[in-house]
C-alpha cells in the first residue's frame, strides 16, 4: 500500500490540487459498496417531555460542571445580578447590544456598552459580562450563544473573567441536542458553553479555569 502522490507542480492558486483530489476520490470509491444515509433510530431525547424536569436537569448538569446556578423571577433579577457581581468583586461589566437595561438596575458596577466596539484589551480590563442566550440544553448542561440580541459578539462573552448568563425558563430550555439543533441558525457565529473554562491536560484530572471565563454564573429566569 505505497502512498505515492503523483508529482505535479501545484501552487495554492492553481486549480490542479482541487481537480486532482476530486479525481482521486472518484477513483477511490468507484467500486465501493453503496453507503445509504443513516437510519437515525437513536432517541430524540433521554428525558420525559416535561419542562419542570428539563429545568431541574439543566440546573443539575450545569452545577455538575462547576457553573453556579440561580433561579429567580423577573422582579428579583436586577438585585441578583448586582449581588453576583459584588460577590466576585466585579466593578465593570460589558453590556451587549440589546440587553434589557433594567437587568442592570441595581448594580453599581460600571456598564460598558459595545457600541465602540470594545477592543480586546478593553475587554480584558473588564471584570464581567452579562448576556442572554439563544437556548439551553438540559441533558448536557449547555448554553448556546448565537450572537443575537443581548448576547453580543463572541469576544464579549469570552475575554472577561466572569460570565453571567440569563436563560429564560421554560422558553429557552430544550431537553436534548437533537431538539436543540433545529432551533439554531448555523449561519450565525455559535458558542456552546458547558460550564466554565476547564482543562484535563494535566494527568487527565479536570481543573476549572483556563483561558475562557473562569466563573460562569447562570441565572434561570422563571416566568411569573
Amino acid at each position, binding site marked *: 500500500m505505497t*502512498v505515492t502522490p503523483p508529482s505535479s507542480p501545484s501552487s*495554492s492558486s492553481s486549480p490542479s490540487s482541487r481537480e486532482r483530489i476530486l479525481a482521486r476520490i472518484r477513483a477511490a470509491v468507484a467500486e465501493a459498496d453503496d*453507503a445509504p444515509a443513516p437510519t437515525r433510530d437513536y432517541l430524540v431525547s*433521554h428525558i420525559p417531555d416535561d419542562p419542570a424536569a428539563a429545568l431541574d436537569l439543566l440546573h443539575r448538569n450545569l452545577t455538575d460542571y462547576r457553573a453556579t446556578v440561580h433561579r429567580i423571577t423577573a422582579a428579583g433579577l436586577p438585585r441578583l445580578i448586582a449581588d453576583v457581581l459584588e460577590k466576585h468583586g466585579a466593578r465593570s461589566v460589558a453590556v451587549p447590544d440589546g440587553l434589557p437595561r433594567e437587568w442592570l438596575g441595581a448594580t453599581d458596577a460600571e456598564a460598558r456598552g459595545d457600541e465602540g466596539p470594545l477592543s480586546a484589551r478593553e475587554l480584558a480590563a473588564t471584570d464581567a459580562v452579562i448576556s442572554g442566550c439563544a437556548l439551553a440544553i438540559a441533558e448536557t448542561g449547555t448554553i448556546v450563544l448565537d450572537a443575537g440580541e443581548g448576547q453580543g459578539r463572541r469576544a464579549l462573552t469570552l475575554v472577561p473573567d466572569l460570565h453571567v448568563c440569563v436563560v429564560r425558563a421554560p422558553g429557552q430550555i430544550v431537553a436534548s441536542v437533537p431538539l436543540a439543533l433545529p432551533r439554531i441558525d448555523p449561519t450565525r457565529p455559535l458558542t*456552546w458553553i458547558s460550564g466554565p473554562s476547564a482543562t*484535563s491536560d*494535566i494527568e487527565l484530572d479536570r481543573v476549572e479555569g*483556563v483561558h475562557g471565563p473562569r466563573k460562569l454564573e447562570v441565572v434561570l429566569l422563571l416566568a411569573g
Partner: protein
Amino acid sequence: MSRTHLGMPSFPPFPEAAGAAVHNATLRANLRHATHTIRDRRAVAVAELADWDRLREAGRQIKDHTLRHLDRYLEQLESAVTAAGGTVHWAADADDANRIVADLVKATGEREVVKVKSMATQEIGLNEALAAEGVSVYETDLAELIVQLGDDRPSHILVPAIHRNRGEIRDIFRAEMGNWGRAARDGLTDDPADLAEAARLHLREKFLRARVAVSGANFMVAETGTLIVFESEGNGRMCLTLPETLISVVGIEKTVPTWRDLEVFLQTLPRSSTAERMNPYTSMWTGTTDGDGPRAFHLVLLDNGRTEVLADATGRQALRCIRCSACLNVCPVYERAGGHAYGSVYPGPIGAILTPQLRGIQSEIDASLPYASTLCGACYEVCPVAIDIPEVLLHLREGVAAQGGKGHRMEKAAITAAGWVLNRPGALAAGEKLLTATRALHPKSPPGAGAWTGGRELPELPARSFRDWWRRNRR
C-alpha cells in the same frame, strides 16, 4: 516523490521503542494513572445514554455515507464556505498545505501565529514549515504548550503531554516560559490549578495581540459551510474570535453532509473523548460575520494520503475516525508503550492503522505498527464510529507479510514449514510423538526461543499428545 508527511522524523521500530518505554517507571505510572482515570469516567458517561449503540451505528453510517460521496460533499462544502465569505484552498499533500498557509500568513504581513490544537497541522509539520519561513507559532492548548515548551513530541491525540506528570510540567514551565514570553511566577507549584493559571497568564498577552490564527476543525458541514471546533480551555475561542485572519487546515474526511448530522457527534465525541456530557466550549462558524470575529477566513482542505486510504475497501474505515482517543485510553499496549513508540502524531490503536496507511509500510517503524497489538478488541468496543481496528490490523499485516523484509522472510519459511506438517495429521502425530518422547532432552531455552524465554518458561511437554490419548482410550 517522498511518502506522505506525518510530521515526524524516522523512528526505531515499535518493539524497540516500546521495549525501552516499558522500563521507564515514571512514564508507566503517568500513563497508567491517566488512562485508567479517563477510561473509567468514559464508561460512566457512555452508560448514561441508553441509545449509545444506536448513536454509534448512526455515526458509522454518516461517516461511511459521506466517504462514499466525498467528492460531492466537498464541492458542496466549498460552495457554502465561499458563499459565506470564506476562501477555500485545496492541498494535495503536506508541502502543498504548508506553502498555502505560509503564503497566507506572509500576505498579512504578520510574523506571529496563535494556534489551536490540531492533528492535521501536526501531521503536516506546519509549525516547522512556518518557522522556516520566519513565522513564530504559539501553541495555545495547555498540553500542546507543555510539548512545545519542553521541545517534546506529542504522545496522545487528546492530551499530547499525557506522558508528563504535574511535577515535570511545573519544571518545564519554570524553565521555559520566560524564553517564549511571560515567565512563570516564582514559587510556581505543581498544583494543576496553579499550572493552568500560569498558562493563562503566559498566553493571554499572545491572544490579545494576535492578528493571525491557525486551527483545525472537528467537523465541517457540507450543506451550510459550518466548521466546528470542540475544546475545553477557551484557547480555541480566543484563536477563533480575536484575530483578524483565521486559517483552518482540515482533513477532507472531516466533512459531514448536514447540520442535523451533528446531533450524533455532539453526543458521542465529548463522552468518548473527555468523558463529559459536553465539553466546556464548542465553536461553530460559517465563513465570516461582519463585526464578529475574523474578517478573513481561509479553509485549507487537506488530502495528504487520505484518498489512498479511501481506495482501500478494508482500510477506509479508518477515515471515520473523529480523533476522540478513546481507543488509546483503553489500549493495554498503548498504556505500557506510550505514544512516542508509535513514531507518528497518531499513536495508539488508531495510529497503528492510520499511520501505515498514510505513510505506507516500507519503513521498519511503519511495517511494525500493524503488529503493535494483541488484537484484544478493546479499541473496537469503545470506538464511537465502530472502526474495526483489529480487522484493519489483520488486513495491514497481510500487506507487511507479503512484502517480506526484515524478520518476515524467516517467519514465512517457518510458517510454511509448520503448515506442511499441520496439513498432514499423520506427520503431525509423528512429530508430536517424537517431541514428547524426547522431552527430557529439550533445553530449557532452545535456540530461537529467546523472545519467549527472556521472561517466561516454555511449557513442559506432556508425556503424550491428546491425539495419542484418544487413539489409546477411545478408538
